[in-house]
């Protein structure tokens, strides 16, 4: 079945006079000319250039577009570091209850007691899971949480008259870490990873001084390994008066097993869209709540939810707060789903999430390591990084080739070429919501690919809607919107 309608653009479907939504005429001031309500120089002089399509056009167009995506609902999606777990349908329904979704951010607090209680309880739950007592639900994404926490640290030091200009990030860190450091006004300095992806303690020691505000660590690290040096790192950072930030991207490995606060971290963010099953939405929205230690708590954004007796309210009286990092309260819709997810699991269930995620990852690792070596250890946490370096040398098949060929077998590709410290990296994260049968089928596909004719693999994918788009031309001569003359 070839569905050409899917790939026409909305603008090409447009026909003058066709329409979908109709807004009924105003039942007040019906006949008053607009010029009597607004100055004529403010009024639009021409029609908007928007397309004209019928409701049926819109439904068929987007329904057909949706079928061109792989998604968690339709495919195994082992995209490393993204925790593509099942997104429970109950969360969608519960987050969509009228009394949850139809709340205006400026409603009086007396009309929001259910929502404020939910958010208050979530603050407490995240404090408990992180082992860090002060929580801000305001940041809109993980990267936003990083930035917010770094700003809080900057405010902490500024108030004490300490001039600390540096943030250290490992070379294996997610790119948002150094980017957030720059945006918070720090100089981002890279620390080397040892062969197993752990922080190189000697390199850390050589860069650690009283100019360092924060050292950002991802643990489990981006190779999917627990960095045993974390306590020693924290000790050293604390000895020079700095803070340890823990990137919570990999929390799916350690829920109820260990807590960032107990590891010596002073601040962290959660990615509820990863760990707590908020759907990824085709690239957002996420959320980035942060948890910090007592000392940094007063600097967190305003407002927070507080409880007074049986009532909940928003506390804006936070004189040492860095202020706001976004409008309104936060990405509440995502937070509500996280709350539902956590309550669906309870303490034993959350721990089981991590146990099953780690079991699934280790099972995959055990099955594939003989053909795709995993350079750093034969055990992992919730994900592992395999290397196609040997396959590239022997058969000319790269990590990208494997990724593309997997698409033909009906699997989303792992994350490729990240972290930068592993050549021909394939970062695989199965999550806890996949079955042994799915993992076995994925392994079988990998085995077959490594034995397939190299030319066939180079030409993959062959069964998808499009094949290896020309990304260079897209970047050199950018076409970022449709226009009449074509494209």
């Amino acid at each position: 079945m070839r569905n050409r309608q899917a790939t026409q653009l909305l603008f090409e479907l447009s026909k003058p006079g066709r329409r979908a939504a109709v807004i009924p005429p105003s039942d007040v001031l019906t006949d008053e000319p607009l010029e009597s309500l607004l100055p004529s120089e403010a009024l639009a002089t021409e029609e908007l250039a928007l397309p004209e399509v019928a409701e049926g056009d819109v439904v068929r167009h987007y329904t057909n577009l949706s079928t061109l995506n792989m998604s968690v609902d339709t495919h195994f999606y082992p995209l490393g570091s993204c925790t593509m777990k099942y997104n429970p349908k109950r969360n969608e329904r519960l987050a969509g209850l009228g009394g949850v979704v139809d709340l205006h951010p400026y409603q009086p607090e007396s009309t929001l007691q259910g929502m404020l209680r939910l958010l208050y309880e979530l603050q407490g739950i995240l404090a408990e899971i992180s082992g860090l007592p002060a929580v801000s639900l305001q940041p809109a994404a993980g990267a936003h949480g990083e930035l917010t926490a770094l700003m809080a640290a900057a405010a902490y030091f500024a108030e004490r008259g300490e001039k600390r200009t540096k943030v250290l990030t490992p070379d294996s860190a997610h790119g948002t870490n150094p980017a957030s450091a720059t945006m918070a006004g720090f100089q981002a300095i890279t620390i080397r990873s040892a062969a197993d992806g752990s922080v190189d303690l000697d390199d850390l020691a050589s860069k650690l001084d009283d100019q360092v505000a924060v050292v950002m660590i991802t643990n489990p690290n981006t190779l999917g390994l627990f960095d045993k040096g974390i306590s020693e790192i924290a000790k050293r950072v604390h000895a020079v008066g700095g803070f340890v930030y823990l990137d919570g991207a990999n929390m799916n490995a350690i829920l109820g097993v260990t807590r960032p606060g107990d590891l010596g971290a002073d601040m962290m963010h959660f990615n509820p869209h990863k760990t707590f099953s908020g759907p990824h939405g085709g690239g957002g929205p996420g959320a980035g709540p942060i948890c910090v230690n007592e000392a940094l708590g007063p600097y967190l954004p305003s407002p927070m939810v507080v409880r007074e007796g049986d009532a909940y309210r928003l506390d804006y009286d936070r004189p040492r707060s860095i202020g706001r990092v976004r409008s309104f309260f936060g990405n509440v819709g995502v937070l509500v789903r996280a709350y539902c997810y956590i309550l669906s699991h309870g303490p034993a269930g959350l721990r089981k999430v991590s146990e099953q995620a780690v079991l699934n990852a280790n099972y995959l690792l055990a099955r594939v390591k003989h053909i795709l070596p995993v350079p750093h250890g034969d055990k992992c946490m919730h994900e592992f990084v395999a290397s196609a370096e040997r396959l590239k040398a022997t058969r000319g098949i790269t990590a990208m080739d494997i990724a593309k060929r997997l698409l033909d077998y009906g699997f989303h590709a792992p994350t490729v070429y990240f972290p930068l410290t592993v050549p021909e990296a394939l970062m695989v994260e199965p999550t806890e919501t996949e079955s042994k049968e799915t993992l076995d089928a994925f392994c079988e596909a990998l085995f077959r690919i490594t034995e397939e004719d190299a030319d066939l693999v180079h030409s993959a994918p062959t069964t998808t809607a499009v094949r290896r788009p020309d990304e260079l031309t897209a970047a050199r001569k950018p076409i970022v919107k449709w226009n009449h003359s074509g494209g």
Partner: protein
Amino acid sequence: MALGAEATKLETITESCHSGERARLMAYFMNTPEDEQAMLAAIGVEQIESLFDSIPAELKLSRPLAIPEAMSEIELTAHMQQLAARNLAASNSLCFLGGGAYDHFVPAVVDSLASRGEFYTSYTPYQPEVSQGNLQAMFEYQTLICQLTGMDVSNASLYDGASATIEAVLMCRAVSRREKRVVVVGSLHPEYRQVLETYLVPLGCEVVVVEPSGETVDVPAVAAQLNAETACLVVQHPNFFGCLEDVSALSAACREQGVLVVQVFDPTSLGVLKRPADLGADVAVAEGQCLGNPLQFGGPYLGILACKESFMRRMPGRIAGQTVSGTDRRCWVLTLQTREQHIRRDKATSNVCTNQGLFALRASIYLALMGKQGMRELGESCLRKAHHAQRQLVAAGWERRSDAPFFKEFVVRDPSRQIAERIQAGIEQGVLVGVDLGRWWPELSDSLLIAVTEKRTRSDIDRLVDVLALKAVGV
């Protein structure tokens, strides 16, 4: 700190649950005990706990997390319904609240299409071959935003209106190489202004605020603050009070000093009002919640950012671009990625990683449904209804603070200064009457900001006026 040990007890939830073993309630796991044994054997360990041996024992948590016990779907549904019942939903009342989030109508098609699992359970299109749906939707979103604003290019969205505003300012600083000073018109949303200060002050960038006189700013007062050190001017139009600013005149003043213009606009106004590009803006940013997205207590929303083509390679966030696949077929990819953090790291244009894909999709579906006609009708409807409400309230004894022209929201003052009582009276009658401006400006604690969308009818407005009639309190 209000948080701490007390916060983690959560007896309020746990009391609704039975204690004990509730693991059987957890519905999302796949492996049977037999699967587990087979997998452990393949791994070469006896028990799952051994897989955590790399974590030093002294760092492990030796007790269960002190969080509520698991709930079944039935129990959780009842719990959430109870929480929901303690809120007054806008959908269960008459909502005249605005201030950057609005109770506009969302057509069923938006919810229906956006709830397709292929959209909302997919992720950032790193593999374009299996993400053409999302990529094409992003490309269409970018085009729709350009059509709406008249700007040359749009990114694929940011977190919200405030984050789009600060990202626009950071972009202007980089483009202009004027790092030390920005000027902000004080009728900007107060929370956006706070966000600008949070980000910019620690970077050593001065945020000069020119306060409005009345409800709009005087152009000469702004012009006096512009100089060759100023990166950009940030002006909201219609402004936070609903009133129209003279962006054309402000833009002209900016040109003289080489100052870039960032306009915060209201997408629902553009069927009626001139577009940001027509007014001389270099960057147009907006809160896109009004385009088919639910209120959901403030987020997730949609940050819109569109600009002149010359800034394209300095834009923050994701951008979809058109190209061809091996077979010469038109298709779409993420492009201009060398701006972004995953490649450029500390030199990236922004730390932003994801966009707000699902909400950009909703906005696209909404704009497609509305089309040029629908957006015109929407703007006119809001405009007429807001003016009717304002006139009725003035007739009932409320006062305007100025005679500035306004679009869909306006400020009215209660000469008897009993705002809290009037808000409470509204709640009792199921009317959310307006936003108390005293929450940001103590001197405006006698004033309400009232928004009127296309959903409100003549009789709804009558009810508002009835609730707010000055005789209603204390008689």
